[in-house]
């Protein structure tokens, strides 16, 4: 976090309402996302208990397991989930496309919080290696679901990918509340700050939202009081009706069990769609068009991969793939940081706070200045910007100058002159920075019209350049050096993975 976010938190605390910390939306939102709220049994590793899932706010599907430790029921539950998730995914892959094409749109999963992402990843892990024939056969859709959930979970690590989003993460990326980041992890309290009910401050609403009776946890963990006071009894009722062979009683007990879990899930369901509406209220940043395009390509590639051989993703990346992936994630992140700053003045403001960018009016422009030391005489105008921002950029450093129109030109910092207090009071800034423009003026000796800012124009200069960084060279998988374990063995599906315990 930064000073600006902290300041926004302080203001939110004072005003009793969350403050926007972004001017545009930095996630893509599908017009038809699939909301997925999983619950797991306490103490179990990814032991599903229930889920509420669907792409229509009016029609959530409730899936429960009344005997949570039973392996057959778990796989039946996974198959029920697949029966909703897979048709949803397929509905985006229905067109005939060529090898070098991507589908028009892609699916989008929304989970409540980072725990929901973790659950998705583990559910993918525990189902993708299963076999549909032989000794440990599971329904055909189960391993396919696993390969899809694994795909979504892996994409969640890619900067600015929106194929799967955690709602608390998406909301806290755009709003600062008057509570701590830790308390923001509670979806109901977070939304209470952002969008309090009429007649209440965010602070009051957040306090009320901490009542687990009214707003149960958004999962995957259930509230211990619910487990001990309600769930335990319902599980017992189902068990004793099953033991007694009482079919009517079993139906009633199972209905009671499902109703209890529905009560824990439905409040979160409405919060998820409230979050969607709030996020939709923000205009999407332009750079996300390109990022979503990448998501669509990635999705299309996975559809093709599953159609070709469909082997499950490895348990762990081999050394080369891990290094490639990490490097590409880092380069993506740098690229996104720059794009976000150029499109969102509040993000750029963080650069300005840190001294890596500054903004202000052009106070002096030497538009006719040229450089004739090279083969060709080139325009090299000097522009002096008066800024109130603290400038930590040194002379000689390359910067990008962002014009009022949004166009960006390269420049080099030539003079940094600290201003005086009197200047600050007149509002013309405390520092005068002179930069030499080096691009965006055409190929002639004199700059093209508009190629040089006029006196009075508002300019931002930043060390964020966003210039293309070539990818490092990586060895082929077969040439993994011995320092990294040598070439990894090929994955061969085996009985042990297919029959792995899951209970």
């Amino acid at each position, binding site marked *: 976090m930064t000073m600006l976010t902290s300041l926004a938190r302080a203001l939110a605390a004072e005003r009793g309402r969350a403050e926007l910390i972004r001017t545009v939306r930095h996630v893509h939102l599908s017009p038809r996302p699939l909301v997925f709220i999983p619950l797991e049994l306490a*103490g179990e590793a990814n032991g599903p208990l229930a889920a509420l899932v669907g792409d229509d706010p009016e029609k959530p599907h409730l899936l429960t397991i009344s005997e949570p430790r039973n392996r057959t029921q778990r796989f039946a539950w996974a198959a029920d989930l697949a029966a909703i998730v897979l048709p949803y995914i397929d509905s985006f892959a229905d067109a005939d496309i060529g090898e070098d094409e991507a589908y028009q749109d892609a699916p989008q999963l929304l989970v409540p919080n980072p725990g929901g992402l973790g659950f998705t990843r583990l559910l993918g892990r525990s189902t993708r290696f299963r076999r549909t024939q032989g000794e440990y056969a599971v329904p055909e859709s189960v391993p396919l679901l696993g390969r899809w959930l694994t795909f979504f979970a892996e994409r969640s690590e890619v900067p600015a990918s929106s194929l799967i989003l955690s709602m608390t993460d998406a909301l806290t990326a755009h709003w600062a509340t008057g509570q701590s980041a*830790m308390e923001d992890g509670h979806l109901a309290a977070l939304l209470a700050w952002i969008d309090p009910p009429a007649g209440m401050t965010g602070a009051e609403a957040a306090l009320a939202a901490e009542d687990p009776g009214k707003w149960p946890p958004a999962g995957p963990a259930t509230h211990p009081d619910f487990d001990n006071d309600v769930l335990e009894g319902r599980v017992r009722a189902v068990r004793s009706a099953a033991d007694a062979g009482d079919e009517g009683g079993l139906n009633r007990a199972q209905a009671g069990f499902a109703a209890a879990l529905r009560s824990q899930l439905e409040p979160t369901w409405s919060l998820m769609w409230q979050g969607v509406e709030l996020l939709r209220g923000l205009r999407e940043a332009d750079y996300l068009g390109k990022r979503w395009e990448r998501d669509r390509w990635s999705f299309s590639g996975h559809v093709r991969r599953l159609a070709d051989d469909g082997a499950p993703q490895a348990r762990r990346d081999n050394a080369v793939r891990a290094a490639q992936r990490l490097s590409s994630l880092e380069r993506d992140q740098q690229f996104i940081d720059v794009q976000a700053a150029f499109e969102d003045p509040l993000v750029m403001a963080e650069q300005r706070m840190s001294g890596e960018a500054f903004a202000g009016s052009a106070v002096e422009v030497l538009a006719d200045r040229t450089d004739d030391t090279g083969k060709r005489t080139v325009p090299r105008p000097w522009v002096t910007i008066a800024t109130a921002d*603290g400038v930590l950029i040194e002379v000689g450093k390359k910067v990008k100058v962002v014009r009022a129109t949004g166009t960006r030109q390269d420049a080099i910092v030539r003079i940094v002159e600290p201003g005086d207090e009197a200047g600050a009071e007149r509002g013309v800034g405390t520092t005068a920075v002179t930069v030499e423009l080096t691009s965006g003026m055409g190929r002639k000796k004199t700059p093209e019209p508009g190629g040089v800012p006029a006196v009075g124009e508002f300019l931002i200069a930043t060390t964020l350049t966003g210039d293309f960084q070539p990818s490092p060279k990586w060895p082929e998988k077969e040439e993994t050096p011995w320092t990294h374990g040598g070439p990894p063995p090929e994955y061969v599906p085996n009985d042990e993975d297919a029959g792995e315990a899951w209970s």
Partner: protein
Amino acid sequence: MPDPVDARLDRLRGRANPRRHNARTISALATNPGCARRALMDASGADKNLIAEHTGYKAPFGQSNFAIIRGNAFESQVKENGAAPLLGLLRDHLRLPIEEAGYHDFNEALGNDANEVRYARTRQVLTSADKNQGTLFDHPLLRLKIAGRHAYLEPDLIAFQLHGQFHIVEIKSFSVIDGQADPAKVAAAAIQSAVYVHALRDLLGGDPEQVHHQTVLVAPENFSSRPVVTGIDVRKQLTVISRQLARIGRIDELLEKFPEDLTFDLDPAPGADAAPRRDPDDLLSAVRQVEASYAPECLSTCELCYLCRDEARGTTAALGKTVRDDFGGIEFVASALNLARGSAPAPDREEVAAQLRHGSALRTEILGETL
């Protein structure tokens, strides 16, 4: 003659059954060594959970029976037949040259004597153990010096001894999946193990060589209940624990700041349920005499967190460490906002005040608002 500090602490606790420290309370205290309220309550063994509930600030956490059942089942599975499955795991992990090992369960051996007596007996058994025969000691009673006083711990752990060197073994029920577990849970287990290593070294006379810094975590593998062993190097956590324990003020000095008659007694009704009868406001004002040091992290570790959070409203600490640090340690949100609005700062606040004014100016420029 009873120790005067003990008498004061007994008085503070009142008629409630004393709550014993465990590794979790120690690591919670160690993460917030500046909290006098927690230090006093824990030293006196007051029931923070009941106090929180009676004053209207019921703690936001508890434990699910499902998790308890699962944890107990896993533990007894590993310890069945005199801990034979555990020994098998340790043999592979520590490359033990032995076929068999003894198993000594202090739970059965110590009975209900006073802590001091049980501690002395534990020490006697541990120090006189046959060095050439491996032995698993289950539930040893350990002791730790906190705030100048001894706190007794009865941890759920096994100390394995061979050739005079001990290994701390902890059995946890969170899963290790493809070699990875929930980092928060591993971190908590590591700090707990470090507390035990510290206490056990103390018991054995302080020689660090006698207790290995590599502790042994036994947890279910992947999605099964098959146990898998992982070694955790807790040297870093040991340094943290020692430093933090040293930072907790001495209890006797702390007690001097408060009136003799201060008590957190709940005035329990006679009978089995011992319902608290003390006026909640009266109890609250007693609690409030002792200063707390609230941080949002308390929400997951301390039963009194809602009470302290309520008091901390309006402070920068309540918004989290990042905010407090960004504001250069300014205590109140209102003071920080005043500086952002241009009020004159104290000489030592000039730098942060300039930052706050800068932030405020940027908001005005971009959002068109005036703070």
